[in-house]
């Protein structure tokens, strides 16, 4: 009986490591991939649906990435180019993990997105919440929501008048 226990216990690490063929760094960098992965991002902004989908997201044109998350000095920047403009969110961390990320309340205004012209910006009274629900093989997925303030030519509009809801992103590649 006890030997059976030890045999099983010995088999577990060998089995797990043989199933996970990539090393952790390779998995985080998303290297050694052989399949094309489609990345998506979608959300509603004041009731208007915005979405973007990128086939083979790991191999986007080198000078034009439509949907990506890039590790920069001290933070990660998720960005997307949609039919209505840009969308961007910064994860202020040196090491991105599964979890919730909010914008700081002491910011002086952080650009998030635009829609048919005006810029919609996070302002200290607003909310911008991102949840990373999975981070595997160099790709992140999750959901987000927020309340923003419009800004046109550096003039603020009605505070917290823009709502982002039903936001989701899937298989967004992280580039270093």
């Amino acid at each position, binding site marked *: 009986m*006890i030997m059976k226990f*030890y045999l099983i*216990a*010995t*088999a*577990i*690490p*060998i089995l*797990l*490591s043989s199933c*996970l*063929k*990539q*090393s*952790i*760094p*390779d*998995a*985080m*960098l998303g290297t*050694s991939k052989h399949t094309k992965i489609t990345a998506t991002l979608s959300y509603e902004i004041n009731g208007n649906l915005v979405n973007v989908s990128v086939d083979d997201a790991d191999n986007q044109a080198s000078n034009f990435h439509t949907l990506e998350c890039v*590790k920069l000095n001290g933070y990660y920047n998720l960005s997307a180019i949609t039919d209505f403009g840009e969308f961007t969110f910064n994860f202020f961390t*040196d*090491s991105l993990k599964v979890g919730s990320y909010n914008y700081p309340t002491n910011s002086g205004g952080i650009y998030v997105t635009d829609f048919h012209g005006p810029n919609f910006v996070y302002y200290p009274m607003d909310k911008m919440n991102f949840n990373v629900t999975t*981070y*595997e*093989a*160099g790709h992140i997925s999750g959901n987000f929501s927020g309340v923003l303030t419009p800004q046109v030519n550096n003039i603020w509009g009605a505070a917290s008048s823009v709502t982002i809801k039903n936001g989701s992103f899937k298989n967004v590649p992280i580039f*270093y």
Partner: protein
Amino acid sequence: MGKTILAATILALLVMQANAQISVVKLVGNNTKDYAIGFGAFIKGGVPVSEAADVTLELGADIFFMKGSGGDYGTIMCPLKAGYRYTLNKTGQGLYVEPQVGFNLVGVTSLPDENDNTLNLHYHGVVFAAGAGYLFTIGRAPFDLNLRYETVIAHGGSNNFVGLGISRFIFFRKRDSD
């Protein structure tokens, strides 16, 4: 990587002061050929739960340098593990087997990026290990010679290595037969 090496050195010194364990370790698996043989340092103790078995607790650091990097690039992991060590002759001495499970408190891999800047990847992860060894005494000092296979799992990947170690073992309580 410099801070990591400093932390590993401090831990190694603490380990030596604590009469604890050192080992040689080798990463195995895909994309590990660029890594040289590394070293590990541990503090490991145990509490006898029967004549044959001990529950063990181990805090360690394993460091692996990339070949030719001059110590600038590599991987360090600091796993905290609990194990159940069972001696085959049921005396608390001699050959034993020991499965362990735990958590990787610190994991850092330093690599050069496309522009030759240092890229530090940070991770944690669960740890599974399967080990076997030989417990013996020199004088009244208990020693432990062991071989183990260990895997750290995080972000959908795994770092796997084998280690060969020797330690002066710490018992937190004596066996009833001692």
